[in-house]
């Protein structure tokens, strides 16, 4: 494997800098955002590299769990931050975190213990990247679905209430919205699976090949991870939508948009 020097990375960074300078004339605000994001990438990835190095050196279940929970907490915050109209109070945070925990962690443990079968099962070289990919994709699905759900409920409140007025249940009143929401949460992973290998070469497989792995072995890992992501993101989205629909209605099945905040 060819090692990259700081000078190599700086050359690539010049590309971002050039883009920022060019965009100054079109949309000045964008240049700043671009540079901040690029800087964050460099700093965050360097830090996680150091963290992983330390973690690999003393692979204890405690440290792996702590890092996993920290990742979950950040993902939960990210889901909340992406909501145009999120649930007020701790619900806004809890719905995302609970559904990500239930789906991503279960799928990750299942993959580590049953599929990969490493000793010990929490070996961080496997556990952390696997969980990271699962969390990242589940987070996207859940964020998309929740955003769509709360937005649709807000826009279609009169239709939902018209159905309630006729005596339909809360579930019946949002069934079509729920279908669209579930679809929008799953579309990214469905598209990724459909285009994999034909249009796009997925990142993990590419990385393994760059690191010198046998392509067929790398492909097997990629297929595994695709299926795990589909399961994790799918069940995570289902759980989040389920929780959110419950929260949208109260015990008398009234539509409670006052529980959302802008």
């Amino acid at each position, binding site marked *: 494997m060819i090692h990259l020097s700081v000078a190599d990375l700086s050359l690539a960074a010049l590309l971002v800098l050039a883009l920022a300078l060019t965009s100054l004339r079109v949309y000045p605000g964008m240049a700043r955002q671009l540079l901040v994001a690029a800087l964050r990438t460099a700093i965050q990835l360097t830090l996680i590299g150091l963290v992983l190095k330390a973690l690999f050196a003393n692979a204890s279940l405690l440290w792996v769990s702590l890092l996993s929970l920290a990742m979950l907490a950040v993902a939960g915050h990210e889901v909340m931050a992406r909501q145009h109209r999120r649930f007020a109070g701790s619900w806004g945070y809890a719905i995302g975190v609970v559904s990500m925990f239930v789906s991503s962690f279960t799928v990750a443990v299942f993959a580590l213990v049953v599929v990969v079968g490493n000793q010990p099962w929490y070996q961080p070289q496997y556990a952390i990247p696997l969980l990271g990919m699962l969390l990242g994709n589940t987070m996207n699905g859940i964020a998309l679905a929740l955003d769509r759900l709360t937005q649709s409920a807000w826009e279609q409140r009169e239709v939902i209430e*018209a159905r309630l007025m*006729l005596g*339909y249940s809360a579930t019946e009143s949002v069934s079509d919205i729920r279908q669209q929401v579930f679809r929008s949460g799953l579309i990214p992973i469905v598209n990724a699976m459909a285009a994999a290998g034909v249009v796009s070469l997925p990142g993990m497989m590419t990385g393994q090949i760059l690191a010198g792995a046998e392509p067929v072995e790398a492909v097997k890992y990629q297929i595994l991870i695709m299926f795990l992501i589909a399961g994790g993101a799918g069940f995570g989205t289902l759980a989040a939508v389920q929780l959110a629909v419950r929260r949208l209605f109260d015990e008398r*099945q009234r539509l409670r948009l006052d529980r959302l905040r802008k």
Partner: protein
Amino acid sequence: MSRSTRSGVTSCNTHAPAGQGIAVRKDGRYDGRFGARFFSSSPASAVFPRVFTRQSFHSTKGRQRVTFFEVRHLSRPGLKAISFSLAAGELVCLSGPSGAGKTLLLRALADLDLNQGEVLLEGRPREQYPPTEWRRLVAYLPAESRWWSATVGEHFDSRPGELLQRLGFSSAVLDWRVDRLSSGEKQRLALARLLTREPRVLLLDEPSANLDAANARRVEELVVDYLQGRDAACLWVTHASDQIERLASRVLYLADGRLRQELAA
């Protein structure tokens, strides 16, 4: 058109045990056995067969009567301690300046918004009804109806039968596209849609506001017949004094969130 004659039962507040009434099953759901007759094609005079209910039962046996629909100290932001009652078969008009809280009151009665106070149907508090059942029985028709599917028929769970004819439609209306309906057609069809759910208390928010005189009369006659045939009650929001004169046994006047006066019509 004759005025509603069944307005005599209002006073007693006896709480009947659940399921005592004949028209209500043990679990509090309305016994739908008249539904089949109601919606099957039958002579026009039999569209709304008279239902043998608690009121007629009690009046013949001389037992204590239960107020059909009773509201006690209902309050919510915009409404202050509203109390009134409706007898079975009774039509009461609700009037008052716009912004007085008429819609807020109807929404609270249908339990669509948070509110405090007691609301009882046939002596049983609303908390004893499943929320879906309560809203089917105490049915709110908003001033502007909402339609979510492409054709009219998709919005009906059961066949509306003669309801459509009585409102001036042929049964082909079920195939009509919703986006081609005029506001008056929507208003009449929304009433038909509501009545096919077989409510016991109708909360109608200006149900004839967009209608010409002939169609307004059709709506009035249909509602009055429905109330008498099914021993249902109706709270009808209107500002038209001639309509109040024709329809109502009483008028409730709402201003500044308070039920100010009850004038005899």
